[in-house]
């Protein structure tokens, strides 16, 4: 095989239509007779619905139907949770439309269907609802206290679950409590992962067409296959009568990894009305009702020796679930559980997480899902340890991390890290960054009394990608497997259609998949069409999240290509009148070994099976092939990120002066796409460190309900990133790829906060709560501590 496409920075073939918008988004699907839905949402965090009357809305111009939760209580079904992390997890029924009680601001209470979207929105104002306020449960610690007000009175507790991993009990390591007792140094901290809003660019949208006897559902989702399976299950519709289409989808970041109330509402409305319906949320609705991310309080204790060797870690989390359990929400902190030990070798670890109900929007997967939280905590702690011991923070890390010759390495969590070279990535990053010079400058400026302080932040990270070996998911009580599919279809003219079970929503799968096929089958990049997102064409798959598409779906594709070649070979041999064993395949052509001339291309074989006039006996006339790949292990990308910040102590403004990222994500299919993922990921991680926070007031009103208050950064807020790579191929599969979708987000947040704290340490500051807004930084400088 000669590699030409893989590794080349191809421009993305899908971009022209995505950037110009000249494509199918769910919002521009228009069907004959289609009605438009508008949803009335709760203005309160917690209240009894004492009465609700939708009839005035029915009298409004253009309105065809209006209904409340009570009207559909026994047909609307309940939203699914696919990850009951413990056997005794509390799982309250989650109705798409609230019936008797609203449990968070933004929850749906009634629905209007009208001939136009404007008419539907106008009619909402006519609906009469009386709310009887109930106490809003907002603070997690208060929620867990005895006698607390309850989100779900019938459950008797706000504690959804407590999930524990203990390396001593699991037999994968020592006893963390003992390590802490015996430690020469203990660092104890509380870190708070603020609540974030995924804020994908395309708001969520759904169209349901009940015409005929199959329900067709277009949705701006990351998970068309999971949605089909679960919609069938929760609505009692036979699965073969449900078709889901995720057309082009404008971003997700985990925020569209959900089966949503809006999807079920549209389904119920279409079924009730017998007509197609469409619902598209506004940005304000999206911010209050689409699931949020993070919102975890971390109590962490690190045990170490005076020489900097870490001897144990104990982690106790409270994870805010919101008012209900989301699709995979309970499992998000568990995805982080195995990452607190990060790239380090320490021998004892205990992790305990309680999922807590509050009267807020549910939380669920958000880029990184569990791993950014873990990385943040351990990387902040390593800096604190270094400070405590008077050591350079990189030196402390070096003393603890796994060395290149120790791979594969079995961690204190029992995971087997596949490959990596932390020294190499770090050395490269330090050189690009100019670490030593910046340290010198920092000292000099401190001596001069500059009011703008230079800070240097480090983050050395690993993560687990390629969700996931099905067996592992089963052991973690997740509701599905982790395999992925690919189909390759050879058209008679030699062109290729590829079907993937992953579901791109901006990542560039069509380009990367085409590059893989081009190399494997020796066809031009342009000759490959990648199909996805419609359960009619791509009937089997597990969709896109957790940096899994290439790391799992890419391998399925590779394997399907090999099967095509296996099928083509005897046909080529037949045409060349030789023994298949004498053929070799290169550059798209089967040739008799040792004879560079002649031969037959794959296109020749495709035409031959199309005609099927003259095939060897017993050969099925097709080259098409399917493959399903179930990974044998996660893959573990890693890297070193370095950040230099300028902290203006007069105003508190933090600006990033230099940001260097050296990532090792295994082999790279398309460096341009990788750059894009790294840049976007770093931006999102910096956003958590500096800019974004979803804030509720004491009554449970979301205060950051528009993008004026939920301050998303733009390009103008970010520096130019310096990115580079090292390459430790994944050893478990032929592509050697590891996954890059979340790396930047996971790595960057602690790099930035470490840099800010580093800048301000001489002023007595050892932590600042995220996001480190100018005001918070200024207050920290005023008070010497935040």
């Amino acid at each position: 095989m000669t590699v030409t496409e893989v590794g080349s920075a191809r421009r993305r073939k899908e971009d022209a239509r995505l950037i110009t918008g000249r494509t199918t988004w769910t919002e521009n699907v228009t069907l004959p007779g289609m009605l438009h839905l508008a949803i009335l949402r709760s203005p309160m965090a917690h209240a009894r619905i004492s009465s609700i009357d939708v009839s005035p809305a029915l009298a409004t111009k253009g309105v065809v139907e209006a209904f409340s939760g009570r009207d559909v209580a026994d047909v609307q079904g309940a939203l699914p949770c696919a990850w009951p992390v413990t056997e005794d997890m509390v799982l309250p029924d989650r109705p798409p439309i609230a019936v008797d009680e609203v449990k968070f601001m933004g929850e749906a209470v009634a629905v209007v269907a009208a001939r136009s979207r404007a008419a539907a929105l106008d009619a909402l104002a006519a609906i009469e609802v009386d709310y009887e306020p109930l106490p809003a449960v907002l603070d997690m610690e208060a929620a867990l206290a005895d006698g607390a007000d309850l989100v779900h009175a019938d459950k008797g507790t706000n504690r959804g679950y407590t999930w524990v991993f203990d390396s001593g009990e699991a037999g994968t390591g020592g006893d963390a409590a003992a390590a802490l007792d015996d430690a020469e140094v203990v660092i104890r901290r509380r870190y708070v992962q603020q609540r974030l809003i995924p804020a994908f660019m395309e708001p969520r949208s759904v169209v349901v067409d009940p015409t005929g006897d199959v329900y067709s559902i277009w949705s701006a989702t990351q998970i068309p296959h999971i949605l089909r399976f679960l919609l069938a299950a929760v609505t009692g519709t036979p699965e073969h009568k449900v078709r889901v289409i995720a057309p082009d989808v404008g971003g997700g970041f985990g925020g569209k990894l959900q089966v949503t109330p809006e999807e079920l509402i549209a389904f119920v409305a279409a079924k009730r009305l017998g007509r197609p319906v469409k619902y598209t949320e506004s940005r304000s609705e999206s911010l209050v009702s689409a699931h949020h991310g993070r919102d975890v309080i971390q109590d962490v204790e690190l045990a170490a020796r005076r020489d900097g060797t870490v001897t144990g870690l104990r982690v106790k989390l409270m994870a805010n679930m919101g008012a209900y359990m989301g699709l995979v929400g309970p499992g998000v902190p568990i995805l982080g559980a195995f990452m607190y030990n990060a790239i380090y070798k320490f021998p004892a670890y205990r992790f305990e997480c309680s999922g807590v109900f509050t009267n807020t929007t549910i939380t669920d997967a958000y880029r990184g899902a569990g791993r950014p939280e873990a990385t943040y905590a351990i990387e902040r702690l390593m800096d604190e340890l270094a400070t405590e011991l008077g050591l350079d923070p990189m030196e402390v890390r070096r003393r603890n991390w796994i060395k290149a010759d120790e791979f594969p390495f079995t961690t204190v969590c029992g995971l087997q890290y596949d490959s990596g070279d932390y020294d190499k990535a770090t050395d490269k990053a330090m050189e690009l960054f100019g670490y030593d010079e910046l340290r010198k400058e920092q000292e000099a400026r401190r001596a001069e009394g500059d009011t703008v302080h230079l800070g240097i932040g480090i983050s050395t990270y690993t993560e687990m990608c390629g969700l996931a070996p099905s067996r592992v998911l089963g052991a973690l009580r997740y509701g599905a497997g982790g395999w992925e599919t690919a189909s390759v279809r050879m058209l008679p003219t030699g062109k290729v259609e590829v079907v993937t079970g992953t579901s791109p929503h901006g990542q560039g799968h069509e380009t990367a998949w085409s590059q893989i096929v081009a190399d494997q089958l020796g066809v031009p990049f342009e000759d490959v069409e990648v199909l996805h997102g419609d359960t009619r064409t791509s009937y089997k798959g597990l969709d896109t999240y957790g940096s899994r598409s290439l790391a799992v779906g890419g391998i399925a594709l590779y394997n399907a290509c090999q099967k095509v070649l296996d099928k083509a070979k005897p046909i080529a041999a037949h045409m060349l009148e030789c023994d298949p064993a004498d053929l070799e395949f290169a550059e798209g052509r089967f040739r008799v070994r040792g004879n560079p001339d002649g031969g037959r291309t794959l296109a020749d074989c495709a035409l031959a099976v199309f005609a099927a006039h003259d095939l060897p006996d017993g050969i099925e006339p097709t080259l098409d092939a399917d493959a399903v790949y179930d990974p044998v292990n996660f893959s573990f990308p890693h890297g070193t990120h370095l950040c230099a910040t300028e902290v203006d102590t007069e105003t508190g403004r933090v600006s990033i002066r230099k940001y260097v990222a050296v990532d090792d994500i295994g082999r790279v299919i398309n460096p341009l796409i990788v750059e894009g993922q790294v840049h976007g990921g770093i931006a999102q991680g910096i956003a958590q460190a500096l800019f974004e926070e979803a804030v509720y007031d004491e009554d449970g009103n979301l205060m950051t309900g528009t993008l004026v208050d939920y301050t998303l950064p733009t390009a103008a807020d970010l520096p130019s990133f310096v990115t580079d790579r090292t390459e430790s191929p994944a050893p478990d599969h032929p592509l050697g790829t590891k996954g890059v979708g979340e790396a930047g987000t996971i790595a960057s947040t602690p790099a930035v906060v470490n840099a800010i704290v580093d800048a301000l340490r001489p002023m007595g500051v050892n932590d600042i709560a995220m996001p480190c807004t100018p005001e918070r930084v200024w207050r920290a400088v005023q008070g010497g501590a935040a």
Partner: protein
Amino acid sequence: MIPPTFDYAAPTTVDEAISALRDAGEDAKVIAGGQSLLPLLRMRFAAPSTLVDLGGVEELRHVREDGDTIVIGAMVTHARVLRDPLVNAHVPLLAQATSTVADRQIRHRGTFAGSLAHADPAGDLPAVALVLGASLEIAGPHGRRVVPASEFFVDYLESVVAPDEVLVAVRVPKQGSWVGRYEKFNRVAQGWALVGVAALVRRENGAIAEARVGLTNMGSTPLRARRAEAALAGADSPAAVGAAAARAADDTRPSDDLLAGADYRRHLAGVLTRRAVASLA
């Protein structure tokens, strides 16, 4: 979301606009660039019965010189202000401050006059209009009147423009020997000001002879920092400027909200004033 239903009038002259407002009654609203009004409509915070669109009124699109004054028509956009030669030559402070307003797309449609008429204390240009000593030409059913900027802003989102009136032009005196600087502090680069300071100074013999300091978002209207201004007069050293600037927030009662605490805003006003004035050395 989608705005509630409204009627729409598209006058081509100021007189037609005034008649359209009169015909439509109390609930009518003028729309200029729509960059402040449309979000309010889409959020359904406002529901005017009629929108009177000034977009087709050609006579409002000019920038002209009138003796010592630059006259900026009501439909002159931020983008036009930024590249207009008269503005750049004679009121550079306005151009520099306008460059900090929102982003390119919004500056392309939003208008200078609309920013003033909207009277949002977080808007950047009201404070600038104050220190520049601008005056506003308003036309109504009973003729025209000219109101100085110092009397134009009444309260949060409220100016002296009556519902049946149209702001037709902003008259801005040339800066002459005054030099100015707008310092804006926001949480994200294209965000609204947490605090902004418009400083305009005139120097004589190396010292500040006169200073005007306008404050954005330090109260329900744009404000002048009179005490700092008085203290700046005669300041001839960085230390003197610093001491004077520290008084910028005297007598102000800025809001204490999600985006910033009042004490922080007051602190920022001082720092920004010092930086703005210091940059004008």
